[in-house]
Structure formats: C-alpha cells, structure tokens
C-alpha cells in the first residue's frame, strides 16, 4: 500500500518574485488518512497543494508520492494517482459537456472508448450527477459544478484525493451533501479549508500552516482545543466546538457529543 503515501521533507518554495511561500514543511501522510491543511490566508496552503502533483517544483527539500520522487518520467503517473480538485470548478470544467469533461482524464490516459465510457458512468454515478451528462458546464449550479469537478478526477481512479477549499461557495444543503459524499471515499484525502466545521467532521488529522511552516500537526480535536495555537495562527474554534450562546452547551465538549444529538 506504499503507493498511497504522501511525504514532504524540508520543503521550501520561493516564488520568482522573492516571496517565500513555504519555509520548511515536513509531514508524512499514510494510506487512508484524511488530513486537513489549515491556516490563515497566505499561510502557504495552495502553494503546498501545487507541489503535491508536481505543478510547482520545490526550491529545496523534496516531495514524494508513493515511493517515487518527482521526475519528468514519473510525473504522468503521479498526476494520475493524485486527483486534484481545484477551488473554482469553472477552471476545472473546460470541455463543452459534462461527459467530455469527465472523459478528459481517462482519454489522456489512453484508455479504450468502452473503458472511458465505463469510467465516466461510474464517476458520475458516484457523485450523483449521472443526469447531468450532456449538460454544458455553464448550465450547472454551484453544487453540481463541484460534484462534477470531483467526478472529473474520480474517473482517473486516483489513490489520493486533494481538494482546495471543497465547500467554498456552496449553500448549506449542497455543502452537507458534499461532506457526506467525501466521508464515503476510501482514498487518502488531503483538504485545505477555512470551513473548520467540515474539517472537524471529515479529518481525523490536521496540519496547521503558519507563515510557510508547519506550526502543529496532530489529531484534529486536540488542535482545535489549543486556544493559544489557534489565536497565534489567526484561526478560531469550529462553531460546533464553541459554547452555544442560546442554550449554553457545546456540541463537541472534550471530544464527546452532548446528548442533544
């Protein structure tokens, strides 16, 4: 199962204009883990994600997916394994119809027509978007776009799912459906998000980035209980862990749900 491994060591990235986005980032994510990368705006989350499929190359340090480091030869294989869903689905859905967009990846993998068809069918069914097959992307709602964007990645059968701000811009119902969908996936999952309640629900482990460095890495609950850490990193407790001003109880008190739910 070693090919589900994602590892970064002393990763440093300096943009051409001199901005140091990542100073020193090290972590190791193993098979089946669901990990959130959180941090304030500009903490380096997006830069980090772009290293995970080789779009950006480290200035120093390394990134490994499975047991391979990134080379020109391993890049296509790594990109297939690491399914990356970008923040704005409009950037990801560029083909004329949903079907063709979901088929884009499998076709680039050189699969046969029958296989492509099967993959598309399965990926769309998985995200509950089978009925959107022939629609052009601009006639989808925000939630539909997001789910289709996930399908475009699932159709390549990735081992690792990387998502940038998955719940961004969704209405509460669409957000709820997406969280349920993601909870069902057995892939190794890596999310960045400001939606800390989603992080609490989906990720057992959280990495806190601050100024391009890993400030904390541990069980999500513990991290959210550390008020000092959260304040220093410009974060705050998820709403569900804050005391309720209306009834005076917290839903997640010390890691246990109160009897109210």
């Amino acid at each position, binding site marked *: 199962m070693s090919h589900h491994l994602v590892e970064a060591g002393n990763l440093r990235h300096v943009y051409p204009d001199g901005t140091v986005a990542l100073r020193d980032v090290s972590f190791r994510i193993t098979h089946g883990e669901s990990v959130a990368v959180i941090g304030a705006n500009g903490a380096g989350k997006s830069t980090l994600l*772009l290293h995970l*499929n080789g*779009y950006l190359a480290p200035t120093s340090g390394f990134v490994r997916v499975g047991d391979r480091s990134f080379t020109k030869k391993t890049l*296509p294989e790594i*990109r*297939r394994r*690491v*399914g*990356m869903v*970008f923040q*704005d689905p*409009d*950037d*990801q859905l*560029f*083909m*004329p*119809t949903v*079907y*063709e967009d979901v*088929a*884009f*990846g499998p*076709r*680039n*993998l050189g699969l046969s*027509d029958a296989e*492509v068809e099967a993959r598309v069918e399965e990926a769309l069914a998985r995200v509950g978007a089978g009925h959107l097959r*022939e629609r*052009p*992307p*601009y*006639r989808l709602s925000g939630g539909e776009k997001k789910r289709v964007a996930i399908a*475009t*990645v699932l159709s*390549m059968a990735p081992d690792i799912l990387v998502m940038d701000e998955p719940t961004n811009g969704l209405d509460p119902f669409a957000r709820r459906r997406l969280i349920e969908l993601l909870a069902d996936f057995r892939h190794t999952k890596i999310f960045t998000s400001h939606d800390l309640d989603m992080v609490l629900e989906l990720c057992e482990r959280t990495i806190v980035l601050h100024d391009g460095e890993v400030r904390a890495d541990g069980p999500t609950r513990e991290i959210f209980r550390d008020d000092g850490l959260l304040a220093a990193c410009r974060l705050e407790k998820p709403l569900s862990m804050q005391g309720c001003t209306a009834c005076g109880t917290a839903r997640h008190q010390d890691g246990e749900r109160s009897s109210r739910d």
Partner: protein
Amino acid sequence: MASIEGTILDFRRLDRLAAGETALHRLDARAKVLVTVAFILSVVSFDRYALAALFPFFLYPAAILALGNLPIGYFARKVALILPFALAVGMLNPLFDREALVRLGPLAVTGGWVSCASIVVRAVLTVSAALLLVGVTGFPEICRAMERLGVPQIFAVQLLFLYRYLFVLTEEGARSSRARELRSFGGKGQGIPSYGSLAGHLLLRTWMRADRIHMAMLARGFTGEFHSRRPSRFGGKELLFLSGWSALFLVLRLRNVPDLLGSLVMGSLR
C-alpha cells in the same frame, strides 16, 4: 450593464435551441457545415447587380427554420442587428454609381441603389444561414465538424475554449462594470481612465484564470492533444442532405430562376 447580461442570456438561448431533437438536429454536423458553406459561397458569388436572382435563396433559411422547429422572431431580431452594418457598407453605392439600370416611368433606378439592395439581401441571407447553423447544430459540434473536415485541431480547440469561457468572462466583466457603475452614482465615475484600469484588471484576471485552467488540464494528464469522442457517421441521410441542397444552390446560381419563371408566365400569356 443589463445589455451585456441580456446578450449572454440570448446566447444561451441559441445554445438551448441547438439541443433540439428534430431530424435536422440529428444530422451529422459536417453535412450541415458543408451545406452552409455551399449556400454562402453561392450567394456571395453573384454579380453585384444581382437582386431578383437572390430571392429564391430565402427558401433555404425558411426550410431550416421550419424543419428545425426554430422560433422565427428570435432569429429575425438577431439578423436585424447586423442590418445597419450591411447598410453602412452599401450606403455609398447610390452616390457613386448613378447610371440608370431600370426606368419605371419617370423614376430611374440607378445601379448604385440596386447594388446597395443586393448587399443588404446578401447580408441577411448569409448571416441567417450562419445563425441557423448554430441553432440546429450547436457551437461545440460545429468546431468538431470543422476539425474532422481538416481544420487544424489547434484552431478548433481555440474556438471551443473561446465559447466555453465567453460566458465566464462576460459575466466577470459585467460584474466589474456593475461594481463601477454602482459607485459612480449616475455620473461618469472618473471617466475613461477608470475603464482602462477595469479592462486591465479583466485581462490580468483572465490571464491568471488561463493559468489555472492549464494547471487543471495538466493535473489530468493533458499532453497537448485533444481526444474527441463519437465517431458519428456521415451516412446516407447526410449525403442526401448535402447533395440535395448543393444541387439546388447550383441551379439557383447558374439559372436565373425568377427570370425563367417570368418568361414562362409571359410565354404562356402570349
């Protein structure tokens, strides 16, 4: 900015029409593209004083409207939009070309007027043919047909991307423009310079978006080649459609049918 947004909605309507389910919609796009090209070539190849001979060509748009079950009012409005441009092109002809072609009693119709009218009629014919093509085929299908007819893939793909992001970009532009308008309180809002910066921002944002799209494509294994699907067949129906219309255009082009009809009628009267 209601007008920009209105225009987008209008575009979308054209797109929805193309999703129709008539026999005409189901024809292979290549046949429709070729017939449209044949139609346009026949119409524009007429002599510049041709006028009466052009009218039978209205048969084609009328047939497509009927067969494709398309709303005539919508297309008429779209075509009317380009009339001023056609008029502008032909407007000077009556001034320069004063040689009388036809005399109706005291009224002399000069060559200039005839050629001006001819330009307008041709514009109406060709533009409506092109719009109707989009209306019964859909833009993406047309691009694909062009590619399969031998247009280099890079052009076809450019057009596809243009179409896909037209909506995204116009919406973005409309939003920026609305934000500017709402803060200029009915005044000029610091005039032209503010538009310059608005356009500049739009360009930069577009640039960044292009970067992100490329990123998303690379992430899904893009290597510079587009693999398209559906080897839809160019079968008997398509051949019939293409040869039928082309033959008709050829006849209409080479024989002046209204003249022929006229002389037939006159001959029988005599």
